[in-house]
Every structure is written in C-alpha cells, then in structure tokens.
C-alpha cells in the first residue's frame, strides 16, 4: 500500500518523540514509587511528578497544587461530575441539578445519565445550528440546587468552541449572588495545545485534561481542581491510600505522568511560538482546495468559532463510510450512521439540526503537529478524485443534477 496519512487527530495523536524520550528512563531506571518517602528512588519519582504538575499547571494558568492525575479524561470527567454530585448529596442530604449541553462527549453525557438514575435532574442545553449554546438558556436553567455546569471547551466532532469565558462569568455571578455551591466544569481535551485555555480568565472550577489528545500517551490524564473560595469538595471515585489529596487513590504511573507533563510543555510551546498556525494553514489549504474542485460541500458547525485544526465537512450525495473506504490511505472519521455500531448517525450533527442525509455524508479531518503540506496536497487530489467517482455512482447526485428536489420524492424505505 502507498503512504498512509493520519488526519484523525481528534481521535488520538501519536506520541511526540520528545515525550517518549522523557518517559523511557522512568520505566527501568527511575522506577521508584513517588509515594516512597524514604529513599532516592522515591524522591526522584516524586520530583518528576511534581515537575509534571507544574508543566500542566502552566499550560492552563493554574497552580500546580490544583492538578490531580487520573487515567484519562474519561475518568476526569466522571470524577468531576460524579465526585461533585456525590459530595453535594452527602453534604445536603438530597440530590440536585446539573446543566450540560447535548453535544458533550459521552463521558460527560453518560455520567449525567448515571446520576439521573439516582434521581438527579439534568437540564440538557440545546445548541444552535452553529453548535453553540444559548447563554440565555443557561441563565434560565441555573437553580439554587445546581451543583455543576459542565460545558466542553471545544467539541471533538465539529471542533466548535463554546463561549467559555462568558459561561464562567455567568456561573460565578450566579453563585455569588445566590450563595450556591454551583461549579463550572470544562472538558478541555480537544482545546489544549490548539487554543489558549486560561482557567483564571474563564473562571473555571474544574477542567479535564487528556494525554493522548496532545501527543502524549494513552491512559493518563488530569483534573484541574481550583483551590480557594468557595472550596471545591468532591468525593473520590477510587479509594485506597488517599493519593492526590484524597481525590484519586492509586500509585502514580510516573512514566505516564512525565509523558503528560512533557506533552503539556510542548503544547504550550505550539501556542506561544505560533506553531499551531501552521496546522491551521494545513486545514485551510485542504478546505480551499476542495472548494475549488467540488460543489455541494457543507461545513458542519461554526467556521468562526472552531479549533484551528478541525475540518468537519459533508460531501453531499456521497455516503461517509464509502468515502472513507475510497480514500483509505487517509485516516479520518465520519458522522455517518454506517460507521457506528448502533447505526445511528452522529448525535452532535443531529443536535446542530444537520439534515440526516447530510449527516450520513460527513467526514471529520483533524490535522496535527506532524502533518505536512505534501500530505495535504496528496490528500486533496485523492479526495477530489474519489468524490467525483462516488458522485458518478450516486443516484442522488444524478437526480439533483437533473433538477429533482430530493425532498419531494416518496422514498420506499425498507
């Protein structure tokens, strides 16, 4: 097979070689347990861990004491939402209320569903066709028993960025005015290293971080837990030893943590040096090229409020899975029902109000640090060629070109 191109950086990213180099010594040389206080093996491990804490804190403008390590952002999301909820229930002797958009990652949605089964009420915020929540709807939803508002910084499918600073301001103002304990949690997994994330400026209380989305290893993440008033209390999901200030027990995987820290440092560099703009240029290069050659292309979600590396586009009249098979040298993903085990099209696209037909034709490209112009140019040629071939095979494209309005046809569904 000819070269394989990786344009699926929202799904995962390769480890940066510098991350790997930083991690390796901690496997067989400096393998001590960071909790061993009595010998050098332990001290070295601990020093490495604390260094990582600082690197991560720097990335989000936090203090290193506010970073706790987890097995990944899924765990961080679970810990933030369920941990806060459980403490709330125990402390107030009742269940409460959660607010979150319908377009969140499953780790957030399913955590909320789990709490619903325990009697918690959830307000599911809608998004407009740009993929952005209504600040008015948020304001109206806030109640004195709202324990947590969870809104992701940027969406993993469409890359759309929410008005996080405004949301933080609203939650803060509400909390102060009504003396509630409402907290603002932000899943920043897709945003880190791509756009600036500042927990102070955005008044974020809890923030989820993932290693493998920013050129770090899989299986490690972190949760930012703000210090200071009002104090954040959350109940640990995992007990046993009281590590991470009692919030997350378990021997720290030092090599993983070192990797995460290095990844965070490199992510900050991408932002500070403007290297991320090169990735934006690659994304734009593909999009401009596609528009020159093909008609009937539709961007899903806001173009303006979007991660610089994301391109989520519907190639009308060409089904997504067929498209991915046709451009098999390019690793990407689709919102088509045919690509999901449940045969349901992407719930994010549906929430935007994207026509179901177009949802089936959507492809998500996520560009990254290691992609090049040559790769984009090669991909452009391949995509254009295959879209044309598949449209030649498409009865829908044929009908549309003949002037038929597809919505007027009575389809014989099976």
């Amino acid at each position, binding site marked *: 097979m000819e070269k394989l191109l990786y344009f699926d950086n929202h799904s995962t990213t390769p480890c940066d070689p510098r991350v790997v180099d930083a991690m390796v010594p901690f496997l067989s040389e400096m393998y001590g347990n960071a909790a061993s206080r009595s010998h050098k093996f332990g001290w070295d491990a601990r020093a490495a861990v604390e260094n990582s804490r600082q690197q991560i804190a720097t990335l989000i403008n936090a203090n290193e004491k506010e970073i706790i390590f987890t097995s990944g952002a899924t765990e961080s999301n679970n810990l933030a939402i369920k941990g806060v909820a459980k403490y709330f229930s125990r402390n107030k002797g009742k269940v409460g209320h959660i607010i979150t958009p319908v377009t969140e990652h499953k780790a957030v949605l399913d955590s909320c569903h789990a709490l619903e089964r325990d009697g918690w009420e959830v307000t599911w915020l809608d998004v407009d066709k740009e993929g952005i929540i209504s600040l008015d709807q948020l304001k109206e939803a806030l109640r004195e028993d709202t324990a947590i508002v969870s809104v992701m910084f940027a969406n993993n499918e469409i890359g759309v960025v929410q008005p996080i600073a405004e949301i933080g301001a609203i939650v803060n103002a509400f909390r102060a005015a009504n003396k509630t304990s409402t907290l603002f949690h932000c899943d920043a997994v897709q945003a880190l290293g791509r756009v600036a994330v500042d927990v102070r400026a955005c008044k974020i209380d809890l923030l989820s971080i993932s290693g493998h989305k920013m050129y770090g290893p899989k299986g490690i993440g972190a949760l930012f837990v703000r210090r200071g008033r009002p104090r954040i209390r959350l109940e640990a999901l995992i007990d046993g030893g009281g590590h991470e200030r009692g919030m997350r027990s378990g021997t720290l995987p030092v090599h993983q943590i070192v990797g995460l820290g290095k990844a965070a440092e490199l992510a900050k560099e991408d932002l500070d040096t403007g290297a991320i703009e090169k990735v934006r240029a690659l994304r734009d290069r593909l999009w401009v090229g596609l528009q020159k050659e093909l008609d009937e292309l539709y961007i899903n979600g806001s173009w303006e409020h979007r991660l610089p590396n994301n391109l989520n586009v519907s190639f009308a009249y060409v089904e997504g*899975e*067929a498209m991915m098979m046709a451009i098999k040298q390019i690793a990407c993903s689709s919102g088509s029902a045919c690509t999901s085990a449940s045969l349901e099209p992407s719930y994010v696209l549906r929430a935007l109000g994207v026509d179901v*037909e177009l949802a089936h034709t959507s492809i998500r490209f996520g560009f990254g640090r290691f992609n090049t112009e040559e790769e984009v140019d090669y991909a452009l040629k391949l995509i254009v060629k295959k879209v044309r071939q598949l449209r030649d095979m498409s009865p829908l494209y*044929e009908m549309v070109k003949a002037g038929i309005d597809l919505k007027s046809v009575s389809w*014989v569904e*099976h």
Partner: protein
Amino acid sequence: MAYSDKLVQHFENPKNVGTISTDPNDKEVGTGLVGAPACGDVMKLQLKITEEGIIEDAKFKTFGCGSAIASSSLVTEMVKGRSIEDAMSISNREIAKELELPPVKIHCSVLAEDAIKAAIKDFQQKNQAKDPS
C-alpha cells in the same frame, strides 16, 4: 470496517455502474429505486429485459456504504442472463454469503434484493399496459 476481499473488490472495481435508459417510459427497461437518503442507503437498479423475459443487461447507482455498493454491484452480475423468475428468487442471504457481510451490514443485502424486485415490478407494470391481449 474489516471487509472480505470480494466485498472490497466490488467496492473498488464496481461492475456495471451507470444508467441504461433515462426514459421512464422505455418498455425494455425496469427501474427499481429503493431506500431513502435519511437512512443513508439508496439503490437505483436498471434491468434491460428481452421480450422472452431474460435480463440482458443491468446497471446500478448507489448512495450508501461499502457494503451497499458492493451488494448492488454483485446483484448486477448475478441477474445478467437470468430469467425474471430466476432473478425474483435471488435472496439477500446469497448476497450476504458471497460478500461475507458482517451482521450489522446484512440490511444492505436486503435492500439489494428489494432493488431487483422493484426493477422487475416496474418492468412488468409498464408491459402490462402495453399488451391488452
């Protein structure tokens, strides 16, 4: 999706893509249009049928996943040279078996079977009207 070699072959080199006739009143051609854009699967199958009721040519166009395209491509090969009765008896199970369709994609073979029946029905309806005797 990890597909069988045969399926990949039909997808990468589909047989008989196209249109036989753009005239909906062409009595030698039966057209079956099945599925719906909302479902992500639409197949158009055209069959050219002789007076003796033998399918002499078949062409398809499909909007759908790899399994859907492969199923319809295979169908055009399966029906060529067959009588209408024979073609009507083609079951989705044969298609699914030949392509080794994964369980989640069996419905694509069902749609392909539906396409054959729809095309033949269209042909028969057009030709009933033609010959009152």
